[in-house]
């Protein structure tokens, strides 16, 4: 055995720069770590089916490609991080990583990437992990077609599915993330895209932005999380064609916007969330062509919001369409469709002739005194809502949709 290794070592440089190293339980190279050590820049390491009990596999060289065949299982034995990349231009695919160590002091991950550029992680299955993919100070990375899951119950002992910190130009696409703390967590991440991910059953958020600018997420589904998506302290975020579904619980919501500026939110579906969008201190946000269906509150505006524009959205069968705190502050509602609108359209231009007031009196009262929610769906509430609708006294006078649509706004073709 030893001679074979030595022989290989001597012979290797003789071949062309890229060579293939096979790792399998019965192969000469039966450990991944050994394979890595043997690899030169540009080499391909193929890991064959089998179970490998390894952790702290460090890859520092550039241009290393690691590929699993027959879905090999790497068992971290609950000790620490499993793969640790710090080189650039690597690819990783086809593996299943299980049992990543938990720690309250260190962020152990199935795959840790630090200071890497141009990497691609594809077709990975991560189970019972602490953090799934932990990416720090990296650029131009792709994470796609992965399934990350864990069975966490409480927030403190759980890690995030995809956790990216201080990075830019990342693409996270077509992944399935569940049972984590946050499905995807981004902090100080720029110019990145999250698309076609399915983030569900996570304890905290499906997707979580902190201090991240110029990012975009689209075509994702956020289902049944503690809360769907939280976007905080970020600028220039584009959110489109996502589905926020069943984020239902005492103070749950589909989308939380907190201290964000200049965002575009369009063509999303908000279905059966306690709160569709919860907005706090956000400015210059455009909401258009979204569908809000069967939510408790479709949109809850909690103050310090300026120049938010709601155009051409559909508000369908929500318990409350809008809850609004504070001044109108040049926020605008225009050309939306409201399923509770009862006005008429005499000139047949598909625009209602009388304005619609989306804030009901009861919604206003509940905002002032939350305990009054116990009167929800009582006859008295219906009566005061009706009288307020006829002659508004309490609800913000200028919070109106002056041109409500008579028919639901049709869904736009995917762009």
């Amino acid at each position, binding site marked *: 055995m030893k001679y074979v290794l030595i022989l290989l070592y001597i012979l290797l440089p003789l071949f062309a720069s890229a060579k293939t190293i096979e790792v399998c339980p019965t192969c000469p190279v039966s450990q991944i770590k050994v394979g890595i050590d043997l690899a030169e820049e540009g080499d391909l390491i193929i890991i064959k089916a089998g179970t490998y009990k390894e952790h702290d596999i460090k890859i520092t060289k550039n241009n290393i490609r690691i590929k699993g065949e027959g879905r090999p299982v790497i068992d971290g034995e609950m000790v620490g991080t499993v793969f640790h990349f710090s080189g650039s231009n690597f690819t990783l695919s086809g593996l299943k990583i299980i049992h990543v160590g938990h720690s309250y002091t260190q962020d152990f991950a199935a795959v840790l990437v630090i200071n890497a550029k141009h990497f691609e992680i594809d077709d990975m299955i991560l189970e019972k992990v602490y953090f799934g993919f932990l990416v720090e100070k990296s650029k131009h990375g792709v994470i796609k077609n992965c399934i990350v899951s864990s069975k966490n119950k409480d927030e403190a002992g759980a890690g995030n599915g995809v956790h990216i910190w201080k990075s830019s130009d990342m693409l996270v696409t077509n992944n399935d993330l569940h049972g984590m703390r946050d499905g995807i967590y981004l902090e100080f991440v720029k110019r990145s895209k999250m698309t076609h991910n399915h983030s569900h059953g996570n304890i905290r958020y499906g997707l979580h932005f902190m201090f991240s600018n110029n990012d975009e997420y689209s075509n994702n589904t956020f289902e049944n999380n503690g809360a769907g998506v939280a976007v905080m302290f970020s600028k220039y975020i584009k959110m489109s064609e996502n589905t926020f579904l069943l984020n*239902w*619980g*005492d*103070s*749950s919501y589909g989308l939380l916007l907190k201290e964000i500026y200049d965002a575009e939110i369009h063509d999303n579906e908000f279905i*059966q969330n*306690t709160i569709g969008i919860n907005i706090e201190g956000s400015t210059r946000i455009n909401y258009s062509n979204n569908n809000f269906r069967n939510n*408790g*509150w479709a949109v809850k505006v909690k103050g310090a919001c300026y120049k938010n524009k709601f155009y051409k959205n559909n508000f369908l069968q929500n*318990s409350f369409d809008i809850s609004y705190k504070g001044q109108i502050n040049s926020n605008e509602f225009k050309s939306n469709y409201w399923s509770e609108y009862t006005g008429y359209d005499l000139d047949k231009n598909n625009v209602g002739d009388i304005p619609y007031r989306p804030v009901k009196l009861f919604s206003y*009262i509940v905002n*002032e*005194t*939350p*305990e*009054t*929610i*116990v*009167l*929800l*769906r*009582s*006859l*008295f*509430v219906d*009566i*005061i809502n009706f009288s307020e609708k006829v002659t508004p006294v309490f609800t913000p006078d200028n919070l109106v949709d002056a041109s409500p649509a008579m028919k639901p706004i049709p869904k736009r073709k995917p762009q």
Partner: protein
Amino acid sequence: MLKILKYSFYDLMRSRWSYIYFLFYLALGFVLLFLFNDVSQAVITIMNIILVLTPLIGTIFGVMYYYDSREFTELLLSQPIKRRNIFLGQYIGVATSLALSLFLGLGIPFVTYGLFQSSEIWNFSLLLVTGVFLTFIFVALSYNLALSYDNKIKGFGFAILLWLFFAVIYDGLFLILLLSFSDYPIDKLALIGSSLNPIDLSRVLILLKLDISALFGYTGAVFKQFFGSSTGMISSFALLLAWVILPTWRILRKSKRKDF
């Protein structure tokens, strides 16, 4: 008493109004299930209707039956029967026939739409149980009024006022109370206030069982803690029961001293 109950019940079950009431619920059940095609959606709409309609119909029917059968009651009074049995029998007869209309009227469409396969069966049962309670409560209350006022018009007027009070005015006063104390912790007050009115109590009991309870937020947590516990469940049904027993007791007391 059972004899009176039986014949009052026979009489009412054959009355046109019982049929109309029954058919109304039957149609409502089928239409809602047809529209929503979803038992849980239908449950919440039916809740709204039950909470308004059963007290109203119970009140009106109670008063109407009392005034309508006054002469017959006199005939019965001249027979060797205890007074209390006559009134108890009539009251239970009216309430039972109304409750049965509700029960069958809504039960039939839901069962045919596969209620037993649905997870909503408990919510639906709770809905029916509170509907039956409300019927008994409001028939008893209206019987009280009718016993107190020989003048039909007065009796009717007060009965409608009674319904209006519990269905609407109470909530208005309750809301004012909540708003005027909004600077204090008032979730206990909210809890007590909604327990004292049988309509509110029924509404809260049902809402807490439905998904929509998430809208209750923090207040809901207090409510859930209370109503979710067995003590809360037992005490709320005890309250509903008290709303049946106290007016019934007053019917007996009142009828004992009344001249016909």
